[in-house]
Structures are given as C-alpha cells and as structure tokens.
C-alpha cells in the first residue's frame, strides 16, 4: 500500500521539529545544573564584613553539588580588567562567571568572552540604569550585581551652616566661606590619579559644566566651550589664589579613593567626591575617638554631587568557555535576587540594583543615605559605551593629564577630538 504523501510529509515535519527542539534543549539551561565548582572571577570584596563571600557560603550550603568560589583580583578596576581579558583570551580561563565593571560588558560581549542570557531571564525589579549596562547589540549579556554613583561627602564641622557648596570644584566665594579661621590644605579632594578614577572624576567635572565628551550618538564632543570650561575650571582650582587655599587639593592628581578618604578624614579638605562604600569606611574607622583621636563618624554627612555622577557598578556574566552555563546562570540569579541584594547593601554597603531594596526598612535604617544614593543612581550617566573602552579611557586620561599640566592650564590638546574618536573605534595613531 502506498503511503499518502501528505502523511509522509507530516511525519518528516514532526521529526524535523523534534530534532530542532531537542538540540535547543541541549543548549538551554532548563535541565539540571551541571555538577562541579563554579568559579567567579571578581575584584576584591570591598563590602563591609565580606558579604559577597557570605552569600557564596549560603549558596554552597544550598548547592553542595555546585559549590561556587570567588577568585579575587585587585580592587583597582584597571588591574582587574587586564587579568580578566588575558584569561578570556587564553581560551582556557577556568572561569564560569565574570564580575564585570559596567564599562566592560560591551567589550566582553563583542569579543565573544561571555555568552548572552536567553529571553527566559526575569529582569523585572532591576533599576533601569544598571540594567541598561547589561545590554549590547539587542541582547542581554549580564545581570547587575551592584550599582554605584559618586556622592559628595562634607565635613559638618568644617562646612559653615552645614550646607555644602552648590558647585564642584568650590568657587572662590565658597573657599572664602570654607577657609575662614580654619587650617585646611584645600577645599575638595577627588580621585585624579592615573587610573580609571581620573576618567570618572574628569567626566563628572565636565558634565557639571554642562559639557560632554561623547554624545549619545557616539560622537566626540569634548571640543565644546562647556567641556573646555570644565577642564579649565579644574586646572585653575588646583592653584591657590587670593590668599586662599586651592579649591581642589593638588595632591588629588595622585589620589585613589583611599587617599582622598584619608585626606577627608584628616581635615586636609572639607569636601570629597567618593563612592558610597567610603561611607561605611568612615563610619567604621578603627582609629576614631581612640586615644584622643578625632571621631570622623560624627562629623561628616553625604549628599548628591551637584551635577550628574558617573554610573558605576558591576554586572555578572557567564563566561563563553564555561562548561557549566546552567549552574553559572543559577548562581547569577541567586546573587542578584532580592534577598541577596538586600544583604549586600544593608550589611555590606554595596549599592543594590533592585528597587525593593531601597524601600526595605532594615536597609533604610542601616543605610540612612539610601534615598540620596537611589536618586544619584537614577540621575547618573554611563561612560561611553564602546567595545574599545580600555583604549578609550587610556587615551581620555592622557588628554586630561595633558590638559591639567601647568603650562596647559586646562586647555585641551589640539588633537583631542581625533585621538578620542580613534580610540572609541579601537584605533591608535
């Protein structure tokens, strides 16, 4: 008997669909987690009380067949980046999950170092700005682990009337008010050392002057009067004038976050730009009130920067060459869950990436600046998004360094725009 052709076609169709679906199933994370250790390559855990490790311990208790391990790198972003890229390029990174700075997701995605998350990942509840940094080329490549925004710290015992200046760097009138009857070396300290801190601080100071470096269309626009004014104002602020201390501590040119915290604590400056983690460090100051020491915890407050902050933070992504993508994804979902985010922020001081955390009563009690931080994150702006961010930031730092030399007095190098445009595209001339 001849089999009706329609039936044969139907049968072949069913078989074809089955094959496709089966192969898709093999590539998707819905089957049980792959057993074995999950290695998370991350910057050092700066949270108060090592909360990241505590979360990992909790995961390990619940998943004895999929234990996770934090492999820690330097807390300096540039140093983390180099090691992560070198590992990813080696093709045998031994890494399952990367904890990437928000500026690296684009680079790692474009270079094929990480794999996209499929559409089944639930992204509801994340803050919009941090979540945006996880996307590239129409796909989701990571989930936000913690976010960050710069804040303005001020010494309540040194700032008259408890109201910080409305502009950073402080104006001459601000400095007159701050310096009266006080022994201070300068008004304000930031992080202008030769590392990512210089990029962050310079961008914020340019934004504060209503300028920009790269516009939303990816064009370099640093050659505007506003951006130039921002850099010139910064260069001028590092020079003492009118019998007043400089508005910006000249030593900031070599400072990292830790150095500026120390200058702020010692009273060398009345104002400081720093990340929220400095709040916990100042509150937990071991030397405070000891043997007649100064109690910084009772003498500072924090508020939003007068202008937008750079959006900081880290995102968790699955390594391309992992053999445990389902386990890696499950771990990422655990670390970015509501309960984990609450713990990281409340107990560790790492700013949360989920809305609900900021409304939590226990969080608000432990982190009284939660509202200020949330507003700062919502107002924050991302750094330029390019697969060549490492080159871009290096060239931008060179440009800023040249502009801040005494002979330049804040003037941009003539070729700044072409150099930065090349760098955005990965070119170096």
């Amino acid at each position, binding site marked *: 008997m001849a089999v009706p052709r329609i039936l044969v076609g139907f049968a072949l169709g*069913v078989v074809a669909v089955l094959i496709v679906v089966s192969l898709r199933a093999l590539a998707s994370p819905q089957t049980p987690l792959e057993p074995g250790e999950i290695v998370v390559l991350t910057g*050092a855990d700066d949270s108060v009380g090592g909360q990241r490790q505590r979360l990992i311990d909790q995961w390990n208790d619940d998943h004895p067949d999929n234990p996770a391990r934090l492999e820690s790198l330097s807390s300096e972003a540039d*140093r983390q980046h180099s090691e992560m890229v070198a590992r990813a390029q080696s093709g045998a990174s031994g890494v399952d999950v990367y904890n990437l700075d928000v500026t690296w997701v684009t680079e790692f995605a474009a270079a094929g170092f990480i794999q996209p998350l499929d559409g089944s990942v639930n992204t509801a509840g994340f803050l919009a700005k941090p979540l945006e940094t996880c996307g590239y080329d129409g796909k989701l490549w990571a989930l936000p682990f913690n976010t960050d925004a710069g804040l303005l710290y001020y010494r309540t015992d040194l700032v008259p009337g408890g109201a910080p200046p409305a502009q950073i760097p402080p104006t001459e009138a601000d400095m007159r008010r701050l310096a009266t009857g006080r022994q201070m070396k300068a008004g304000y300290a930031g992080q202008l050392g030769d590392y990512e801190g210089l990029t962050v601080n310079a961008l914020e100071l340019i934004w504060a002057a209503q300028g920009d470096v790269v516009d939303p269309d990816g064009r370099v626009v640093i050659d505007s009067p506003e951006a130039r004014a921002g850099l010139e104002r910064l260069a001028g602020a590092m020079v003492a004038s009118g019998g007043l201390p400089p508005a910006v501590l000249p030593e900031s040119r070599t400072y990292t976050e830790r150095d500026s915290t120390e200058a702020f604590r010692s009273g060398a400056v009345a104002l400081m730009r720093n990340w929220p983690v400095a709040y916990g460090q100042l509150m937990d100051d071991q030397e405070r009130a000891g043997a007649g020491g100064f109690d910084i915890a009772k003498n500072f407050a924090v508020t939003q920067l007068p202008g937008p902050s750079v959006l900081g933070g880290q995102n968790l992504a699955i390594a391309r060459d992992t053999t445990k993508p389902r386990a890696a994804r499950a771990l990422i979902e655990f670390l970015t869950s509501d309960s984990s985010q609450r713990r990281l922020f409340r107990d560790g001081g790492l700013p949360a990436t989920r809305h609900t955390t900021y409304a939590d009563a226990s969080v608000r009690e432990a982190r009284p600046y939660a509202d200020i931080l949330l507003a700062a994150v919502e107002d924050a702006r991302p750094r330029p998004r390019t697969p*060549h961010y490492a080159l871009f930031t290096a060239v931008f730092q060179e440009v800023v360094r040249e502009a801040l030399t005494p002979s330049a007095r804040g003037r941009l190098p003539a070729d700044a725009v072409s150099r930065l445009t090349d760098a955005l595209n990965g070119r170096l001339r």
Partner: protein
Amino acid sequence: MMSDSSGQPPARTTIVSAVILVALLGVATWIVEQAAEHPWRALAAALVIAFVTVVPRRQMVEIMKWVIENWKRIVPAGILLTLVALLAVLPLRPGPVAAVGCAHPAEVRVLTSVDELAATRTLVRRYERWTADHNQDAPGCPTVHAFVYAATTAAATSALARAWRPDGAQRPLVSIGPRPDVWLPDSTVDVREVRALARRAQLPEPIRAINSIGSSPVVLVTRAQVPNPAPAWSRLVPALLRGSGPALLAPDPETSTVGLLAAAAYLSGPDGKPTSLAEARQRVRATVVAGPDAGAGAGAVLCRWAGAPPDTSALASAIVSEQAWLRFMGMNPPGAECPGGPVPSGGISVAPAGTPVLDHPLVEFTWSTAAQQSVIDGFRRWLFGGNGRDAREAVHLRDARPDCSALELNPCVPADLDVTLDRYVEAQRPGRVLLALDTSGSMANVAGPAGLTRFDVAARAVVQALGQMGPRDEFGLWTFPGAGGKGQRQLARIAAGSEGHRRQIGEALHGARPAGGTPLYDTIVTGMRAVAAPAPGVDRRALLVMTDGKDTGSGTSAEVARRTVRDMAGRAGAVLFVVATGEASCRDPLDAPPGGARLSLRDLVAADLGGECFDARPDQLTATVAELFKRLWRGE
C-alpha cells in the same frame, strides 16, 4: 515482502512500529514537561501527540513499514536534516559580535617598578602605536594592548618566585594585580632575588629569559656645592649630612631597588662597607625616605626635592637614577607633573665615582602560553630593533652595558646589599621621645635682641627637633604646668611621626602661652613613665625636658624624680635629657628637703645610664637640641 496475504503487517513490523511510536510518545512526554516556559517545545509535543492520535493505526503501520523499507534513503535525509537544524541552532551559541572598528587586541601584562612606572608606560605606548601603524589588515588598529602597573620590589620578587600563586595571606592577584607576561624591573639585583627565593623554597624556576634593554647610573641631584668630579659616595655623604636637619631625599630601600642602592650609598663607611649602627641611626634620620605611597616613586622624590626651600640645607640633595632626573628635567617646564605645578629645580646631577648602575632587564616567564609568548616575542623584537632604540632613548635610557647585566658578581652594584638592608632596618627602628616644654611665666621673658621670648626660641627648637625624628619614630609634646598650675598639659600624645602628627604639634605650640609655676619633678616622673611604657619594636626612648627655672609646685621631690629616672633607665632603657636655659643651670643645687641631699639637674639625669643635662643660652637652644638628638641616635 512486509505484509502477509491477509493484508496484515507481519508481527516484526508491528513490533518495530510500536517501539518507534512509544519512543515518539516518550520524547513528547519529556517535551511536555518542559513546555510551560518553551512554546517551541509545546508545539513539538502537540505535533507528536496529534500525529499519534489522528493517524489511523493501519496507516501508521504502513508509514513505519515504509520507513523501514526506505531506511537507506531516510538515514542520509535525517543526517541532512540534523545538520540543517544544527545550523539553525548554532547561532544561538555565543560568539564574537560584529564590533565597531578594530578587532580586540592581545592583552599583555607588563609589571615594572614604582620608580619606572611613567617611563615604562611611555615605552609600551610607543609599541602599541607601532603595532597600529604596521597593521596591514586594519591600519590604525593596535594588535596589542599593554597594561603597565607597578609593585614594590619586595612584593614583586616574592610573588614572582611563587609564580604569582597565593601563599597563605599573600594573594598577589589581589594585592598587586594581574600575573605579568613580562617584567621590567630596575636591575638584575631584583631578578637575582626572585631566583634566590624560588631556590630557597624549592620552587620551579619561574624565569624563562632575561635581556638588558638599557642602563642608567644612580646619581646625586643637589643644590649643595659638590666637588667636580664627585668623590665616592662614602666621602660625599658625610659632607652632605653635616647639618642638623634632614638633608637628603631617597626612595625607600625596603620597597625600591634605587632606594636600596641609595641606602648602600648613604650608609657606606670610609672603607665602602656599611657604616656602624650608631652612625647609621643618625644618617637614616638625616635622610627623608619617600615610600611608594608618597606618589609616583622617583618622580615624587624629585618633586619634593625641587619644592624644598632653595636657601637652606634642608633636603638639598636627592638620590635617584639618572633616567628619572633626565625625565624630570625633560618636562616642559621641569617638574610640570608635580602636584601643585612646576617647581624651580636649580640643581645639578653628579655621578659619584663608582656609583651603581641599573641595567633594566626585560624578564620573561615560563608560564606564558604559546600564544602569549608569540606576542612577547614581538615586543622583544621591537624593543631591540630600530624603533625600540628610539623609544629607549626617548625615556632617557643609556645603551645596555653587558658588564652590568651579570646575575652574580655584578661589578656595577654593591655585593653586600643584604647587609645594607639589614643595617637600614636596624637603624630605623623607632625611637620613642617625649618633649616636655616649660611654659612657666618666666618663659615669657625676652630672650634676645629680636624680641623673641624664651618660649618662642624653645618652640623653634622643638620644631627643629621634629626634623631629627623619622616617620616611624614615636613622639609627643607636653607643656608644664598644666591646668591650675599643676602637672602637665598634653599638647600631642606620643604617636608615630606622621605629617599630621607633626602638624598637630606645630599648631599646638602656636596656641601655648607661658604662665604659672614649674612643676619640674612631677613632669620628670610622669614623663619618664610615659616614655618607658610598653611599645613593641621601640629601640631608643628619651624624655627631653627644656626648662628655665627651678621646680615650683611639684607634689613630689627631686629625690623621687632621681630614683624614677634610674628605675626607668634600668627597666626600659629610657633616658632623660634636660636642656637648662635662662636662670636654670645643670650644676646649681636644687632645693633640698629638710635633712635631704642637695641634688642638681645633673644628678637627676643619671649620666651613667645615658642621660645628660645641657646648659644652653636661648640662642644656643636649636644647636643644643640637634646635638642632643645626635647623641640619642648614636646611643652615646
């Protein structure tokens, strides 16, 4: 023939068909389990179930029969179908996304010293540019991204010897940074140290290749008068350190190779060997050591040197590499990168006879993969080619000197650097000094034609005394009398000599006003107990009292003070120095209790146990304090 005459399929065909159907249903069931979140799978399951349900059994068997009969055609078709499906699925796997502009460059991790950070960045940036210029496939795209970072000598050598693996509390990936692909230290002295550490710990040899890329002598940069040609360091240094305050700047020997070679220079005795411990204590305190946290290594040393007042001997000289000096002077204007702007240098550099030479090796490691090694090979070839030579000249490196590149028996560096380092560490063990300044009413008397009071002059001497103490020395400042004319006032507690602590003392002196009596004995008793208090690692302890009169208002006697001084000297090695000025004198008898012995200040200080009393006119106070500290550090 697959069917019998009745038209029924044979039993074997029926069984095979049943098995296939059951398998299909099994797969369908498995898919249904997943179907909730996956519409594609739900569709597949529905199709299977529809197929099994809708097609009559007989036709189903016919289909199976047909499949069995035509398996030779069906299997290749199935394989083809699978390949097509794979092609459909593979794009779901991650892969490089079409990037904007250039391809991702190869990452190279370049470790260097704190002193060489700026120069090394300049060097490798030139290499990156060169790879961009010579990229035929994508002009302008660098093929290498070199990340340059610095570590102190001790941290780098220790981590490299262990192949950058963690060891107990030491985690180089955290404390230093990435595991390097190449290392550009200052000298083969550092390479020798890595090998020695690895050998001692019986670890595999971590170093694959060493090639010197250039050389640079250690030089003295100075505003002082020095003979030309300059004599050897052992003759030059005593002349430079003749004054009372710190005269010399140098990198920290414990963290910098240039600092270690500098220490070999300023701690060298007449025979070229390390000087005595007593002499070393004093020389170490006459030298300001800049650690890596003070800024960017040699550049920070030169900024500080250039920023010192030009009309004094304070910090008139610095020891750095010639390369660092030339880089500093090559800025436009010189010192343009110093915090706060350019600084007038107004000095010269001299290379004393027999000065050490840095040979700047390029070190490669055994752990590099073939791909990494290929990138490193490219860097090395460039470095030793024509373009690399230009780059090396641009960072002020002289040509490599084969005679200065030997790992062992290198004539260009001192042989006994371990002894130098030990001597340095021993010499800078901290002292614990309490300064007690008389602020009784008589200290308000005018001390000289300039209208300065005794207190003003004594306060200057105290500030000058701070310059005699290193950053690790602990010191504090009291004045007497304290509140209500009794006891003492603590203007600064005894603490390590940070800049902040020194500033606090200076500010506290500004606010002090002479008034009241002179509770001298109480101050000596309480002060001696304070300096003798337990303090781990402290080497020398002293109470320095400056007074202009006899005791008034103490609750204790001269005899009790004398006994306390001897007791504390015997127990903790604490000594008492008294500087007597104005109406006070070391020899004059102090008031004696009824029936008691008449003691003098000289009797109180227990000279046989190291104490001493100095008579000084107000105009001699500063010089006297300087001399006193020399004796303290010498242990005389």
